[in-house]
């Protein structure tokens, strides 16, 4: 049975990596096979689903979807572009940091879907190529999303699974290294693309003609939506002392926003990406099958043997292993499989958070390596293709792989100096 479970999981990862079939279908078929073939019984399949992760994702999707309708994020992106006054260095840093910060506090997939179309328009207005700016935004969103519990799906899964880690723990342990990495990577990318980002002063003046506040002035629920979103983010900071789970915070915020800023509930709930929710659901059941068959314990044992139980060795193996695995497959299924492995490695000793930060950094930074490594990359590639400006896998890889390597070196040094 354990070979069958491993076979189903590896086959599912391969099909997801090569994008032969939609990843949600793959995850659901894998989950169904695990249950139908008796690898995992129905009771354990339901127990294997991390409902807190699904709740957190759903709540954030509703919150961000309803707030987005007000035009407040468009306003933010346009104001940032105006602040740059068409100067390439300023434009690149401002766009990278607004993307990074939005990714940290919304989620990186939503951020990319909001920011890329506006960037395409800004690039047209400025008369420059949009591709460098979009690439910088994708990489910034994955790095920025690393900073918080809610910023990137791997962190959401870790944060909801590991009770000892709260929202503030993520900020304290991951935000500084994410900020530093984002600064270094943005500077490097500016150097690479500076010749493609030269703006004609006459075009730069056109940015000033845009009126960013106009959409907001026309919006009905802007104050209520922003108030609830900011209140929810504040509640995330306080969830540990208040003894409230992050999923409860997100779902309460979403419920409040539905009450005060949604005229049509059916329409508001359309903002939930059900394919993503079902993808997670299928993954959790598949990983439950691996756990049930003892495969997770065997992988954890193998890592323990290779590293000789060394704390530094384990941390580095998790960081680089998670990055390579995420780059090749997709950081969501890889993290789902790695979470019980890291849990198993910890054993029954006192709680040690270092390996969790290694996993978060490896999975989130690894998401930058290839076009399929993170949901935000796939989404951005889709937006570019629909806009008639597709980006090839190789072109993404040529920038994504070196950026990932550099980011991982920074992460490794950070872990060695401050965590391990």
């Amino acid at each position: 049975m354990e070979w069958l479970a491993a076979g189903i999981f590896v086959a599912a990862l391969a099909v997801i990596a090569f994008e032969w079939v939609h990843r949600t279908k793959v995850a659901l078929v894998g989950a169904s096979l695990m249950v139908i073939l008796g690898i995992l019984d129905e009771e354990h399949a339901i127990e294997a689903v991390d409902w807190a992760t699904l709740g957190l994702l759903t709540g954030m999707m509703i919150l961000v979807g309803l707030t987005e309708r007000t035009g407040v994020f468009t306003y933010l992106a346009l104001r940032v572009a105006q602040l740059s006054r068409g100067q390439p260095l300023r434009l690149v840093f401002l766009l990278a940091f607004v993307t990074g910060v939005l990714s940290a506090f919304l989620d990186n997939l939503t951020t990319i879907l909001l920011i890329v179309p506006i960037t395409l328009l800004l690039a047209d207005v400025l008369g420059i190529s949009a591709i460098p700016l979009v690439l910088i935004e994708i990489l910034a969103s994955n790095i920025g999303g690393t900073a918080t519990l809610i910023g990137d799906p791997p962190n959401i899964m870790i944060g909801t699974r590991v009770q000892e880690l709260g929202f503030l723990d993520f900020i304290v342990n991951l935000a500084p290294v994410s900020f530093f990495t984002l600064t270094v990577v943005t500077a490097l990318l500016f150097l690479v693309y500076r010749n493609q980002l030269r703006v004609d002063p006459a075009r730069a003046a056109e940015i000033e003609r845009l009126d960013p506040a106009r959409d907001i002035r026309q919006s009905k629920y802007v104050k209520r939506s922003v108030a609830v979103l900011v209140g929810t983010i504040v509640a995330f900071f306080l969830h540990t002392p208040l003894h409230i789970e992050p999923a409860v915070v997100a779902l309460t915020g979403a419920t409040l926003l539905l009450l005060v800023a949604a005229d049509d509930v059916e329409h508001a709930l359309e903002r939930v990406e059900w394919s993503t929710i079902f993808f997670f659901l299928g993954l959790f059941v598949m990983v439950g099958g691996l756990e049930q068959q003892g495969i997770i314990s065997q992988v954890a044992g193998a890592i323990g043997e290779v590293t000789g139980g060394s704390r530094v060795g384990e941390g580095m193996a998790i960081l680089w292993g998670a990055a390579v695995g995420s780059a090749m497959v997709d950081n969501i299924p890889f993290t789902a499989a790695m979470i019980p492995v890291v849990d198993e490695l910890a054993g029954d000793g006192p709680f040690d958070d270092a390996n969790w930060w290694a996993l978060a950094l490896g999975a989130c930074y690894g998401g930058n390596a290839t076009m399929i490594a993170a949901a935000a990359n796939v989404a951005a590639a889709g937006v570019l293709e629909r806009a008639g400006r597709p980006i090839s896998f190789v072109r993404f890889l040529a920038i994504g792989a070196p950026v990932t390597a550099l980011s991982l070196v920074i992460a490794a040094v950070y872990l060695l100096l401050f965590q391990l």
Partner: protein
Amino acid sequence: MPTLREMPLVDASVGRSATFLDAARALTEHGVAAVAVVEDGRVVGMFTDDDLLRGLFPRYLEQLRHTAFLEREPSALGARLDAAAAEPVTAHMREPVVVDVETAAVHVAERFLHCDWGAVAVVERGRFLGMLPQLEFARAVMASRTDG
């Protein structure tokens, strides 16, 4: 209820080798919501007023949900038509909605309600007869009720 044969069809079509501009002209000249793209008498695609708009403006426009900030249009956004004019219509067309001339009116109504534009292609034994505008269809149905 009138049959499709009794309804006024518009002979609005372009060949598969037509350009975006050819299709745009056919659409505006005939004043219908969609023209058929035809090859050897068979409908292989449909070019609608939505496709015309998509061609006239940057393609990312559809993905932007807020554009009121463009109160004064930047000069860079006006050049799209020149670029699109010579592109093949096949790059802009979509899957056609086709109904046979013998189809019952209720089925045609259902087709109209489930497609996002106001004209369907009418065929007889697979060969294109003409475009049926939604408004003409509704007018014919209303007239038959009044006559009855």
